C-alpha cells in the first residue's frame, strides 16, 4: 500500500498543509482554488513554494519515475501542444511508459470522437473528460489525485469513476479526491478530510453518511412565493423560511429538522393553498454542517494561532446559513424577508430558529 505525505505545504491558498494519507481520502472544502491547488501540488505537477509532497518517501515534483505512476485530474487541464487529440493522447501514454495505440485507447474508453479533432478545439470540459479517462485507466497507479471527478459532465458516467477508483485502490494506490460536494464525497467514499482556511484537517468522525437533520433545506420555486411563505410559517414542522423578494422572488428556502415532516408540510401547503410550483428539491447540505458536526482537532498553524473567525462562513448558492443558532439581532436592511413570525418554530424556545 502506497503512502502520500504532505509536509508543510505552502502554495497559493494553501497555508501549511500537513497530512499522511494511505488508502482513500476525500478532501472537502468550500474554496475551489484551494482544492485545485492541493491536487496540483499533491500530484507533483507543481512544486509548492514551501514544503514537499512525498509519495512513498520520494519527492513527487522532482521525480519523473514517481510522476509516471501518478494519475491526476486538475481543475483546469491542458493538452500537449500537438495538433490532433490522438497525437496528444499518444504522447501522454508514451510519457507514462505505455506502448499503446492512442486511437485504440480512445475507442476503448468511448471517446473515439475526440481522436480526429484538433487538440486546441477541445473545450475545458472535454479536456477534463479526456484526462479523467487517462487517469482512471492508468495501468499501475500508486497515486490517484482527482479534482471533482464527478463533475466532468461529458460522456463518462459515475460508475466509470467509481470502478476506476476501486481498481486503483485494489492495486494499493493512494486515492485523493477533492470536492466541494458532500454528495460526491458520500458517493465516492474514503476517509474524510477538511480543507478550510488553507489548512487540511482529518475529520474521521465526520458524518458523511448521515448529516445532521438540522441542515435539511427544501428549495421551492414558485410564482406564489409570498403565499407559500405565509402559509408555511404556521406549520410546526417548519423551523424557518427564507424568501428574498428583491433578488430571488420565485425561490423559497424552507428549513426544518425532520426531512419527512418537512417534505409533507411543503407538499400539503402547496395543495391546500392551490399554489403552482415550478420545482421542488432538497438542497445539498453545506460543508459548514460537516465542520459543525465533526469538531476537528486543532492543528499547528504556520503563522501562529488562527483567529476565531478569520473569514465569514461560506454559504453556497441556494443553501441555508450554517446550522448555528440564529442571531437575535434584527435582519439587515437589505433582506426583504418581512414576516418575522415565519422564521421561528413556535414549538421551540426563542432564538432557536434560523
Amino acid at each position, binding site marked *: 500500500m502506497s503512502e502520500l505525505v504532505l509536509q508543510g505545504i505552502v502554495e497559493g491558498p494553501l497555508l501549511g498543509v500537513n497530512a499522511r494519507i494511505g488508502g482513500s481520502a476525500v478532501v472537502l472544502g468550500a474554496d475551489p482554488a484551494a482544492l485545485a491547488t492541493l491536487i496540483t501540488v499533491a500530484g507533483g505537477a507543481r512544486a509548492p513554494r514551501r514544503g514537499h509532497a512525498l509519495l512513498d518517501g520520494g519527492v513527487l515534483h522532482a521525480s*519523473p519515475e514517481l510522476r*509516471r505512476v501518478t494519475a*491526476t485530474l486538475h481543475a483546469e487541464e*491542458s493538452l500537449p*501542444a500537438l*495538433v490532433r487529440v490522438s497525437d496528444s493522447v499518444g504522447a*501522454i501514454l508514451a*510519457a*507514462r*511508459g505505455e506502448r499503446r495505440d492512442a486511437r485504440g485507447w480512445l475507442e476503448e474508453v468511448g471517446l473515439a470522437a475526440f481522436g480526429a479533432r484538433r487538440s486546441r478545439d477541445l473545450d475545458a470540459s472535454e479536456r477534463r473528460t479526456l484526462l479523467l479517462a487517462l487517469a482512471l485507466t492508468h495501468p499501475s497507479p500508486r497515486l490517484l489525485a482527482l479534482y471533482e471527478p464527478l463533475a466532468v459532465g461529458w460522456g463518462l458516467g459515475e460508475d466509470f469513476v467509481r470502478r476506476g477508483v476501486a481498481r486503483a485502490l485494489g492495486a494499493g494506490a493512494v486515492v485523493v479526491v477533492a470536492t466541494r460536494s458532500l454528495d460526491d464525497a458520500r458517493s465516492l467514499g474514503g476517509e474524510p478530510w477538511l480543507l478550510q482556511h488553507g489548512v487540511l484537517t482529518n475529520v474521521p468522525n465526520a458524518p458523511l453518511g448521515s448529516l445532521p437533520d438540522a441542515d435539511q433545506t427544501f428549495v421551492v420555486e414558485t410564482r406564489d412565493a409570498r403565499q407559500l411563505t405565509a402559509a408555511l410559517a404556521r406549520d410546526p414542522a417548519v423551523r424557518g423560511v427564507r424568501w428574498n423578494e428583491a433578488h430571488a422572488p420565485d425561490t423559497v428556502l424552507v428549513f426544518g429538522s425532520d426531512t419527512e415532516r418537512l417534505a409533507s408540510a411543503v407538499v400539503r401547503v402547496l395543495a391546500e393553498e392551490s399554489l403552482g410550483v415550478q420545482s421542488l428539491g432538497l438542497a445539498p447540505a453545506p460543508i459548514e454542517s460537516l465542520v459543525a458536526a465533526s469538531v476537528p482537532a486543532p492543528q499547528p498553524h504556520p503563522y501562529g494561532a488562527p483567529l476565531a473567525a478569520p473569514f465569514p462562513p461560506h454559504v453556497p448558492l441556494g443553501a441555508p446559513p450554517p446550522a448555528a443558532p440564529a442571531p437575535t439581532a434584527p435582519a439587515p436592511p437589505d433582506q426583504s424577508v418581512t414576516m418575522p413570525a415565519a422564521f421561528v418554530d413556535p414549538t421551540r424556545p426563542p432564538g432557536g430558529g434560523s
Partner: protein
Amino acid sequence: MTTALGARLARGGLSARRTFVAAGLGFVTVELASLIERSREPAYAADRALLGPTLGVVVPLVCYALFEAVYGRERPGALVDPLGRHGADRRLLSLGVNGTVALACSVASACFASLAAVGARGFHDSALVADFTASLWGGALTGAAYAGLFAVASLFGRRGRIAALVLDWVLGSGAGMFALVWPRAHARNLFGGEPVLEGSQAFAALVLALLAVSGVGVAAARGTR
C-alpha cells in the same frame, strides 16, 4: 524517448503556417537583396548581401519567429508540463524541444546564407562553390548560436526573447568586450567582417558553437526533472 517527445512538441509548433510564412519572407528578402547588390557592384555583392540583410536582419528575425512559433507567449514550463506531469523528464523534454528548434534555425540560416551567396555571385562566378560551401556551414553555425541565445532567453518568456533580439542588435554591432556573447558579432567575424576583440575566424566559429551548445544546455538544466 523523452527527448523524442520534446522533438515532437517542437515539430508541432514549427509546422504552423506562420513558420513557413516567416521563412518564405526571409527567402524573398535575401534573394532580392542579393540581386540588388549584384546589380550595383558584383565584386562586393556577396559580402554586402551576407553581412547586411541576411545575417543582420533575416537570420535573427527568422530564428526569433521559429522560437515564437514553438513557445508563443508562454515560458518553457507551459510547453513541457502537460507531458512532464505524466512522467516525462522535463529536462530531456526541454533538450528535445530546443534541440529541434536549433536544428530548424541552423537549416534555415544555412539556406539563407547559401542563397545569398548564390544570388550575389551568380552561377557563372568561379568563386561560387567556395562561397556556397562556406556560407552553408557558417550560416548553420550562426543559426545554431541564435537558437542557443533564444533558448536561454525563452526562460523569461517572450519578453526575454525580445530583449535578447534587441541586445544582440545593439551590443552585437560593436567589436569590444560587450559584443563577446552576441551571435551577431561573431557571425560578422566569421563571414569576413570586423572581428571581436581582434579574434580570428576560428575563434568566432568556436564561440558560435559554444553559444549554441551552452544555450540549449543551460535552458534544459534550468528546469526541474
